[in-house]
């Protein structure tokens, strides 16, 4: 039932090398500060660090105590302090406070700041302004790619989304380019490159520049990965905003998968303890159900349970020798499987409890109505009721955004009333949230009778105006036209339903949304790969407001084996969801491709909305 790959599917490259590389570099950096030292780790880096080097490895390299970088002072008695942080200004203040307090107390210690994945000039400047630049030594830990699974690499930069798509801060693009460069040095050049979106384009250009500067290194290497596809999250917000119904996505929506692992609470483990579980291909049970529509999962798990029982039962008729064999070889595996099975059954139950209520059915129904574009009034009312009942601030916001994007913005009346209701329900500070959402193009107002050409002429008028700030505003208002309906028609995103959609034997990628909608991002990738270019997709590209931002970059590469040409690296700038991953895995199985995913972070609708929300400090 799980996706068996076609026999000719290419092998995935071994990404564990990335882990080893990161570990060795970290150890090298730690050894730069010989002797015992205390390590201060930023909270966001803890989980990724744990996947690279556990505490015992840190201890081996004379890390004494571990502290979390947080808003309260830490009392370390060590003579050497090492900080492992993201390049953020607030971290610099934390360090500066600590160092300056030491100075006041007349204490001299050694301080080392390790920035991951790179250091920013702004950070160094803050250190300088705080007068401690000379007291600390700075280093970079170029750890930008964490292999979460055999086919999933994450940069673990959830802030990328807000920084780039909201604040317009391009500082992470360089990091993306570096990461691509690293991949191409390790796994050979990428002969074919496609991309869509401003960030994709910039990253690609920057990466090419890096390759040129250091050319010769990848030359002559056999490419292992035949295609690269870069995609901006803002090309397809819709998919990311939908409720997920494949198992892995549901687990993420329900329990929040963090850095490839999840904390199952007591309600799942059916004990009084929480359990941290790694979710990846090594978990045999999970691997078989991760990409399945949730409606199949339970049946599958019970079948599995029966099989397991049968295997246990086999020992009844065994003689001593067979029993010995059984205990030494199979029992351990069975027990392990048993444990995992019970965990996933627990998780399923917990999800069922939350999701199979009527509310959830209604919610999904509304979502599908929005995607298909019928009974908009009912959906709007549903959303209003949702807000009035204070069901969940994030959920309400998500539905509003989904409505806005699928409908090319809200009609002015709804725009005002929904916002008013929202502010009354969830607090006035969300005025800022709305301003953010508008800027990002997630929640906008329909200009009455405003056709695309009218907006364009408005822009061209403004271009002559010297006020460049206004131009960017105008551009973003142009970008806000999502044209989802037209795109959906062009790309056939809503499958025609004749009869029941059999979720057990999916026909197309739409199964990840119960057969109601083919994820836009995945469809674009499918179409481009089929054509090996953007040819014939001009209209779609125009509707996506990416006329200048879709590119193809092919290098003549004769050495690329047919195997490597079926290996595709998909880079999601701004995050990707598990549903998209499942959909592409399905596509891969159908077409004999293997997809490798590189994302700035794994995301879902909740994370997306949270990134846009202004919460009271």
């Amino acid at each position, binding site marked *: 039932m799980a996706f068996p790959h076609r026999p000719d599917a290419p092998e995935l490259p071994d990404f564990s090398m990335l882990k080893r590389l990161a570990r060795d570099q970290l150890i090298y950096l730690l050894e730069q500060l010989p002797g015992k030292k205390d390590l201060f780790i930023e909270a966001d880096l803890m989980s990724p660090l744990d996947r690279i080097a556990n505490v015992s490895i840190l201890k081996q390299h004379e890390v004494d105590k571990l502290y979390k970088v947080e808003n309260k002072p830490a009392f370390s008695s060590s003579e050497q302090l090492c900080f492992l942080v993201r390049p953020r200004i607030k971290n610099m203040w934390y360090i500066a406070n600590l160092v300056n307090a030491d100075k006041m107390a007349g204490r001299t210690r050694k301080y080392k700041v390790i920035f991951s994945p790179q250091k920013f000039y702004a950070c160094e400047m803050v250190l300088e302004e705080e007068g401690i630049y000379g007291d600390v030594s700075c280093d970079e830990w170029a750890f930008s790619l964490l292999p979460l699974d055999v086919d999933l690499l994450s940069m673990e930069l959830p802030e990328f989304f807000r920084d780039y798509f909201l604040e317009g801060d391009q500082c992470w693009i360089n990091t993306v380019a570096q990461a691509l460069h690293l991949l191409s040095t390790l796994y050979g050049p990428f002969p074919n490159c496609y991309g869509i979106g401003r960030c994709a384009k910039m990253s690609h250009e920057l990466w090419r520049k890096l390759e040129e500067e250091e050319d010769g290194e990848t030359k002559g290497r056999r490419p292992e990965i035949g295609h690269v596809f870069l995609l901006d999250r803002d090309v397809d917000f819709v998919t990311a905003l939908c409720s997920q119904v494949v198992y892995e996505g549901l687990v993420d929506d329900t329990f929040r998968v963090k850095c490839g692992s999840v904390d199952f609470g007591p309600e799942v483990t059916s004990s009084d303890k929480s359990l941290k579980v790694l979710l990846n291909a090594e978990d045999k049970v999970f691997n078989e159900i991760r990409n399945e529509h949730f409606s199949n999962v339970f049946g599958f798990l019970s079948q599995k349970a029966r099989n397991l029982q049968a295997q246990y039962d086999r020992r009844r008729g065994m003689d001593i020798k067979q029993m010995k064999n059984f205990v030494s070889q199979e029992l351990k595996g069975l027990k392990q499987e048993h444990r995992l099975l019970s965990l996933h059954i627990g998780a399923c139950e917990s999800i069922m409890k939350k999701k199979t209520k009527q509310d959830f059915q209604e919610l999904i129904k509304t979502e599908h109505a929005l995607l298909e574009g019928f009974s908009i009034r009912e959906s709007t009312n549903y959303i209003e009721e949702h807000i009035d009942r204070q069901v969940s601030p994030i959920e309400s916001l998500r539905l509003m955004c989904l409505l806005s994007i699928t409908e090319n913005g809200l009609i002015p009346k709804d725009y005002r009333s929904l916002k008013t209701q929202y502010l009354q329900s969830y607090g006035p500070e969300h005025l800022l949230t709305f301003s953010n959402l508008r800027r990002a193009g997630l929640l906008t107002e329909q200009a009455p009778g405003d056709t695309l050409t009218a907006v364009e002429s408005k822009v061209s008028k403004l271009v002559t105006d010297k006020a460049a700030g206004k131009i*960017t505003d105008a551009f973003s208002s142009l970008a806000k036209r999502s044209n989802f309906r037209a795109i959906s028609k062009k790309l056939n995103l809503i499958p025609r339903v004749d009869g029941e959609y059999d979720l057990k034997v999916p026909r197309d990628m739409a199964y990840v949304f119960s057969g109601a909608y083919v994820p836009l991002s995945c469809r674009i990738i499918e179409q481009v790969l089929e054509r090996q270019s953007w040819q014939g997709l001009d209209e779609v590209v125009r509707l996506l407001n990416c006329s200048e931002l879709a590119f193809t970059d092919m290098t003549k590469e004769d050495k690329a084996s047919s195997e490597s040409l079926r290996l595709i690296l998909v880079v999601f700038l701004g995050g990707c969801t598990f549903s998209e991953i499942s959909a592409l895995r399905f596509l891969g199985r159908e077409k004999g491709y293997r997809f490798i995913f590189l994302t700035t972070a794994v995301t879902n609708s909740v994370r997306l909305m949270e990134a846009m929300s202004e919460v009271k400090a």
Partner: protein
Amino acid sequence: MDCYTANWNPLGDSAFYRKYELYSMDWDLKEELRDCLVAAAPYGGPIALLRNPGRKEKPASARPVLEIYSASGVPLASLLWKSGPMVSLGWSAEEELLCVQEDGVVLVYGLHGDFRRHFSMGNEVLQNRVLDARIFHTEFGSGVAILTGAHRFTLSANVGDLKLRRMPEVPGLQSAPSCWTTMCQDRVAHILLAVGPDLYLLDHAACSAVTPPGLAPGVSSFLQMAVSFTCRHLALFTDTGYIWMGTASLKEKLCEFNCNIRAPPKQMVWCSRPRSKERAVVVAWERRLMVVGDAPEGIQFVLDEDSYLVPELDGVRIFSRSTHEFLHEVPVASEEIFKIASMAPGALLLEAQKEYEKESQKADEYLREIQELGQLPQAVQQCIEAAGHEHWPDMQKSLLRAASFGKCFLDRFPPDSFVRMCQDLRVLNAIRDYHIGIPLTYSQYKQLTIQVLLDRLVLRRLYPLAIQICEYLRLPEVQGVSRILAHWACYKVQQKDVSDEDVARAINQKLGDTPGVSYSDIAARAYGCGRTELAIKLLEYEPRSGEQVPLLLKMKRSKLALSKAIESGDTDLVFTVLLHLKNELNRGDFFMTLRNQPMALSLYRQFCKHQELETLKDLYNQDDNHQELGSFHVRASYAAEERIEGRVAALQTAADAFYKAKNEFAAKATEDQMRLLRLQRRLEDELGGRFLGLSVHDTVTTLILSGQNKRAEQLARDFRIPDKRLWWLKLTALADLEDWEEIEKFSKSKKSPIGYLPFVEICMKQHNKYEAKKYASRVGPEQKVKALLLVGDVAQAADVAIEHRNEAEMSLVLSHCTGATDGATADKIQRARAQAQKK
């Protein structure tokens, strides 16, 4: 070939010395060399002459002339010396001319007479004047040692990294020492000086008297001393005409010689070859040259002209007005081959080859002879080696031919030594050419390395030759051709008579995008020559924007730098430029610049958000960005303000800004919030409890929960809470209180705008089936089935569904039928369905 050894002179039993002409000089010297200050650089380097060195008695009008020639006498530069009186000249290891003036200032000139820089040897030198000066070479570079008028020494071991060191005083030194020299031992520069019969060694800590071991008695003064090229040996010439030769450490005597000439020699230099056991010094008087070593007899030469000696690694160069000669010990390989009646394998091979060319059978005899002894490989090797030491191409060729001939009879002779020698000789012959004038020997060339040689060619602006050599030797582009092209370009930008466009075009044509060429370096050079426009043009060719930015900043083209930085996509670079701009421009201009660069603007905004909130506000103000300004104040009202008055004030400012931004919605919302805050404050004062910071919805809920229904109604009216919401809100709050009576009253107050299904739902949520049933009957027909199912009345739900003839509702009911109890109901529905289908 009989005469080949004619210029060989034996010294003792074991060594021969030969002197041959390198060039005949046609430099048309008007003066005698003795009237000039002379400096010649080692490794076949250039010769500098200062004619008419400043003599006080001469009139000021007759200014001295500084001339620079190649080793072959080709003039490279000539300039009128306008600075102060010069004491000493010398070449640094980088072939820069160091001119030591009487006042202790050292002027540094390039090979082409271009002034580079100057530095002073310190105040003490300035006060006491320079009496004598030496330029010497250490492993760190080139040093200058100065003897001042006060008979003190000051030295700097490396002029590139000037650190002056004043040497300790020599006790009782009243007059200038009769001779002195610098010596380098254990990486430290020392000074050895002779005062009367005594020798003193100065290091930076102490002055110690030293005595050379085995020095002949009767010495009352030392006239000349010489340190060998490698600083390992020392020779002393005494007033008795006696020469002592020993190690520089003065611990061991090598040999001595008595030449019986008491006149002080003009020059004395060592002449030895690396790895040779022979030690010899060359002593020059006015008309006589003598090579002396560990032999009873020296070799004497007559000097027709005034000559000058230049010590080299493996010999001595001697030049005069008309000739330039090289004197050295004959290398072993050459000696073996050419010594009269030599039976060495190389000699035989050479002979064999010659016979072979004469088509004589003797060739075979010789060859056999070598082969019988199994010495053919040595023979070939000897010939190759000897070829390297020959100056004349004809001789090189015949030796190489012999080697090649011998190689034919060897199975596995590795070809690389032969090939490499051919290559090296081609390079050497090319640079020894009269026009180039770098008479390097093979050993010197190997010591110098090809890289340095290329540098020297570049220094002489011999770019084409350098490139040809690179291509011939197939050097990697980055080290070879590109480096030279870059140097060429740097030279090109200094040609002031060519227009900026032409220079830039010419450079780009030649360089294209050769790997390893840094246009920014060239541009930096152009800027260094004051050609800013050219520099900018050249930067255009620089593919890496990151490289363009620092120079642009240096040239004060900050705005251009900013756009380049943005192009590079490197935010750090942009930030660097921004901070630069911030300091350089006034605030208004700075903001204007930002406005035209959205990427830079957002970067700076991000920074301000964390670091300089006030600047952020100014930025928005400047842009008339009232929307963001409003948001800014709203944020401030939550984050920065603690007191309610402060918060309201901040919100007021925000509301004003929103009005200006024509965002009435936001303005109204902000005003509502102000109203709410004030109200909440009042509520807190009157009722206690916490209200501040709650949303409107939560405020009303809190009021209902605390039984303040009147106030709740009022607030709902004030804030125009829609009916639907109010019903939901009230229902939820009352259900939380489990006030079923009030709910019932509420449900009957008027027709529910939200229908009655929510009543059922909420009761069921509180597990109150009894209450729920009350409302189930009032639910409208569309939702009736749902309501009935909720309260668990499957049978009735089925009836309603059948009545409605609604397929979806029927399946919904069916899905709720569980077990045997609902069996009958299920059947009923199935029947109804079947009926419906029949129709």
